[in-house]
């Protein structure tokens, strides 16, 4: 009987025994990204282990490296909250001088990337270090207990964006770091999600194989911060894609006129012109994504806020060059 090759390596770099919360979507992300990275290193350099990781302070850092234990089966270093990109720059420079083949992988959460680490990230990208920076985006400061970051979506409850008499929750639209990264005209920028693992793996491999810097913004769920059922992480992440909340795209060399959009699925109707997606008619209303999440619960008493969210999503897609139609739920 023929044995099918597993779709991704069985090597583990994010070892079992880490201390992440049950149902942690980002832990799934760590596992997939490192596996994909390893495959890319094997294909590019003939050595699956030819990489080192620089990690920003954040939940995935603290749950994986509690002395005297480690969840990492790759060379790994954590320096501080805001400087994973700078530390990665230093490692890359050192490897160059040591004549070591391979690539550096940097991890930062949305707080460590979109906010405090933005400057170091920009410096690393601009200097063209041979580093792949993966921002795991769980849309709040989850390490310190669910405070809003600039990557928190509009309307979301966090402990520092509580809904109240004068507040609908987070009142600013989400900051899209991938677009800022792409403005550096680096070889490769993409958004990805644990809700589409095959796309995620493909993109990480592509990022790992380019020469020069690459940036991947990975959507990953947080049952604790999002107040969602533990077992629903991948499902909810997929709903974000299928309802239009989370666009999947790639931008190469900062060519914004040639953004590659990945079809969202979920019955969405995609219109193409010259191979390029120009319009998407989503079938699933964003309410399907919002409903299972406690962080959006209050919005259902404020339908105007959900309508505002729809407008913001349309505007965001417009930036990507795509006209979207977002349905309202059937009455």
């Amino acid at each position, binding site marked *: 009987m023929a044995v099918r090759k597993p779709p991704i390596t069985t090597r583990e770099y994010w070892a079992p025994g880490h201390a992440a919360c049950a149902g942690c979507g980002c832990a799934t992300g760590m596992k997939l990204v490192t596996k994909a990275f390893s495959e890319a290193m094997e294909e590019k350099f003939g050595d699956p282990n030819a990489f080192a990781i620089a990690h920003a302070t954040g939940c995935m850092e603290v749950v994986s490296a509690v002395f005297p234990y480690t969840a990492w089966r790759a060379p790994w270093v954590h320096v501080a909250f805001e*400087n994973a990109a700078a530390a990665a720059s*230093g490692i890359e420079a050192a*490897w160059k001088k040591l004549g070591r083949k391979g690539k550096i992988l940097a991890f930062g959460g949305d707080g460590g990337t979109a906010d405090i680490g933005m400057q170091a990230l920009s*410096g690393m990208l601009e*200097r063209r270090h041979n580093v792949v920076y993966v921002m795991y985006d769980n849309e709040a400061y989850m390490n310190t207990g669910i405070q809003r970051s600039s990557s928190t979506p509009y309307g979301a409850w966090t402990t520092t964006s509580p809904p109240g008499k004068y507040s609908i929750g987070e009142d600013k639209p989400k900051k899209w770091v991938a677009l800022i990264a792409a403005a550096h005209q680096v070889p490769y920028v993409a958004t990805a999600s644990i809700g589409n693992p095959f796309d995620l793996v493909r993109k990480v491999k592509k990022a790992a194989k380019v020469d020069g810097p690459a940036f991947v913004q990975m959507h990953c769920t947080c049952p604790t911060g999002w107040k969602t059922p533990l077992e629903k992480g991948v499902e909810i992440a997929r709903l974000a894609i299928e309802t239009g909340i989370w666009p999947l795209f790639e931008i190469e060399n900062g060519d914004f006129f040639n953004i590659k959009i990945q079809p969202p699925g979920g019955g969405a109707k995609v219109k193409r012109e010259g191979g390029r997606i120009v319009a998407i008619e989503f079938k699933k209303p964003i309410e399907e994504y919002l409903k299972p999440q406690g962080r959006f619960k209050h919005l259902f008493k404020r339908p105007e806020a959900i309508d505002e969210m729809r407008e913001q999503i349309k505007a965001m897609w417009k930036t990507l060059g795509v006209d979207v139609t977002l349905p309202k739920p059937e009455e």
Partner: protein
Amino acid sequence: MPIRTVMKANEAAAWAAKLAKPKVIAAFPITPSTLVPEKISEFVANGELDAEFIKVESEHSAISACVGASAAGVRTFTATASQGLALMHEVLFIAAGMRLPIVVAVGNRSLSAPINIWNDWQDSISQRDTGWLQFYAENNQEALDLILAAFKVAEDERVLLPAMVGFDAFILTHTVEPVEIPDQEVVDEFLGEYEPKYAYLDPERPITQGTLAFPAHYMEARYTVWQANENAKEVIDEVFAEFEKTFGRKYQKIEKYRTDDAEIIFVTMGSLAGTVKDYVDRLRGQGIKAGAAKLTVYRPFPTEEVRELAKKAKVLALLEKNITFSVGGALFQDFSRALINEKEKPIILDFILGLGGRDVTFQNLDEVLEISRKALNGEKVDEVNWIGLRKEIL
């Protein structure tokens, strides 16, 4: 043959870095140390130094990149001053805690506000609790020599701590003085290759660095930094002895000048030591029993040497270009601690002077002398004295 030439302390620091052959240098320009990365970038551009020079976007990233590179197992160097060093502050703790022997050249400069680019020691003194070793140069030759010595001490397995070497803004950074550049082969012999036993990021033998420590382990990790500082005392003596044997120039943690029968000893650091030695010569000419002492090493604090020095004098007059508000200068606190339980101890007086590049003149030192003599005669004087203040503008 060593080359005898003239250069600024900034150039001397860049030459020291070149001779030490770091593999990664990450730097951001800041007055007055900008010439250090400029000169290094020339060395790299001309192929005279085979290193990666990362032109980072901030001092915070400069030291972070150095931490990354050092964690990956290579010799690493940077230069900074003042606000730049302050911006590195957070990561300085991390470099020491991770036991990475990075060397930083500091063109000692005041801190804002008001913004001021001239010399005092507040920048590096403010980093005294980070765990870093601290050396202070009196002249440009010392800037070069101490950087070489700092690498050797920092990389010693008994130490494994980062080190900073301070030299005074403009007084040294921008002043041309005679400097002897040692032979590369001799430096190679002295320093050797840096082969880290514990810090590397090698896929063949993966390790985790920079972990989280719970209360069960944190204190012990901090203790090892304490212990490494203690170990550094002996290692510095050994390295200075070897330095003298190799290069012919003698260094000590505390250098004493005409202290043998001194009643008043003026204690200072950096370039001010030169002025003070001249002043002591003048006093000796007048028959006044004065001496001078210079701290070449500030961290680890040379407690034993301070106790030894204190046996020689009736008054220790500490001249310092830094201030801890409501307490006095850093040296005042350190000397007080070193001597508090000694049976016999001299009077310790603190003099804050030369902040933000204010000249320290012989007239200023006359004032120090007068206050010291009053104390010697049993008169009551202030413990902390601001010297050279322009009271008319207050």
